[in-house]
């Protein structure tokens, strides 16, 4: 049997066999659950009674009409736009700063790893303690320097809660973007920067024409990944506010969790969960289009 196969086709067979465990594994723990979720989204499945009746597009129509889902969609998109844009801008600025000849530059750069390595749940919990209305560090600082008259409940007020969570997310991610940018900055042709400087180009035009092209690729990857993570965000919001107060921080993932696990409507939850995937897909396509346009210029 073995000898009837040529060396080449045996190699090809091995190549596929080596992929098989991964393919089968991903099929079982991701592929099948995903297909099952798609199927469920067209049924009236309950968490307690797993096989529901076929209801066609009912779940989707109800999802689009639901003020809860619309609110959660708006909150999610707002959160993603706010955090990803600030993380990119601040991350690049921090990287450019730490790329300068500074005393202790190695130390400053080494610090960047800390927020990235800190577990998200610990990060969320520690910001809860910073925002605490009774003894929080933020209140202590702001009242002691006179910016605030009395202690505020930053996470307890619908006006500030989403921004408070965004700050925690930005604190954790800006250093990551900075590390990626610093790595990419190694590829910037220094002679070109010097030449542009001698030619009298302004710092901004030097950044745009020489630095930016070297870092735009890695930044785009970071933007796509952060967007995907932002669209499906659950843990940081859950630990800080559980979606409250008054649903002001309820993201799509929390909405889906509540629909499936608090209201027991698994079918309806499935349809709303797929909306998250849809939002991710749309945003990724926007990035790809932007990148293409950038490349065409």
């Amino acid at each position: 049997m073995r000898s009837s196969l040529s060396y080449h086709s045996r190699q090809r067979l091995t190549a596929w066999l080596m992929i098989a465990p991964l393919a089968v594994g991903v099929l079982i723990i991701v592929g099948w659950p995903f297909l099952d979720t798609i199927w469920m989204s067209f049924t009236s499945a309950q968490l307690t009674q797993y096989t529901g009746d076929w209801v066609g597009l009912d779940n989707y129509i109800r999802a689009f009409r639901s003020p809860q889902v619309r609110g959660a969609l708006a909150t999610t998109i707002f959160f993603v736009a706010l955090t990803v844009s600030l993380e990119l801008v601040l991350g690049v600025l921090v990287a450019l700063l730490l790329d300068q000849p500074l005393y202790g530059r190695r130390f400053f750069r080494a610090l960047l790893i800390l927020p990235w390595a800190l577990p998200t749940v610990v990060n969320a919990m520690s910001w809860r303690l910073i925002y605490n209305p009774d003894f929080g560090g933020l209140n202590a600082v702001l009242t002691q320097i006179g910016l605030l008259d009395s202690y505020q409940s930053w996470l307890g007020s619908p006006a500030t809660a989403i921004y408070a969570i965004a700050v925690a997310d930005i604190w954790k991610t800006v250093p990551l973007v900075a590390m990626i940018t610093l790595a990419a900055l190694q590829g910037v042709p220094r002679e070109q920067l010097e030449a542009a400087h001698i030619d009298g180009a302004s710092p901004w035009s030097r950044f745009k024409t020489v630095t930016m092209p070297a870092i735009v690729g890695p930044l785009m990857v970071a933007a796509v990944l952060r967007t995907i993570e932002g669209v499906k965000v659950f843990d940081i919001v859950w630990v800080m506010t559980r979606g409250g107060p008054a649903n002001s921080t309820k993201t799509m993932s929390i909405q889906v969790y509540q629909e499936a696990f608090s209201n027991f409507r698994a079918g309806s939850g499935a349809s709303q969960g797929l909306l998250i995937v849809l939002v991710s897909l749309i945003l990724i396509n926007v990035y790809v289009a932007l990148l293409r346009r950038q490349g065409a210029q």
Partner: protein
Amino acid sequence: MKQPLALRVVLHALAILVAVIILAPILWLLLVSVSTTTHLTTLPFEWIPEKLNFDNYAKLTTLEPNSRGEMFLYAMRNTALVAFGATAIALCAAVPAAWSFSRSKGGQSNLLYVVVATYMLPPVALIVPLFAFLNGLGLLNTKTGLMLVDCSIVLPFTTWLLKSNFDNISHEIEEAAFVDGASMLTVLRSVTLPMAKPALATVVLFSILLVWDEFFYAFILTNDDRSQTLTVAIANLASGRVSDYGLLATAGILTALPPLIIGILLQRALVSGLAQGGVKG
């Protein structure tokens, strides 16, 4: 480009500001962990506590039955076991696959993109079938069940990171072994993997960090000491109406310690690994 003195002063001031912002939340957590509730709630707040109080650390490192320490230490054990287990399982699948993706030009590479794209799927959109699946196998509330499910988070990253690292390893020595008639598995085991050791170490640690960080699946799929992980334990402590903030902060510090140490020790490897292929949030 020589910088004027004023600019240099400003740049250093900004760098110090960045350092303070990075360190402040971590130092706050440390401060709360060694403070008594009385100290915390006395206003105006004193930034330097008169006396350091390590009671909370003692409380969380005891195995006394039904204590919070017991719950916490079990959670830490569970987290470590799930992190190592999921990493081991995921690597068994990812290493041969990543190498195959890297070395063959066939149609397999599309599969790589499918695996990476699964990262886009939110856990909330997979959890109900996964819950039913584990329930059917009797694996709900077990470390094994959580390990298997956590592989779905680890696999896209590890496969991608390994593939881009294998891409950077020279094919020539492998070719020589092939000419000698070695099988693909032999070449992978005795030629490629020894050369990829640093990359493998990075991927292992990266994967452990990912599982250490995981919350949602553990939150849904586990519910007691037998399998509950640290992130769930902390979320439970944080969301209750407990006023024991010192204990909470201490749990946070102890939970963050292993990842922070990994991060600091492997900064360089992690950063180049990140730059090469993937980014963790």
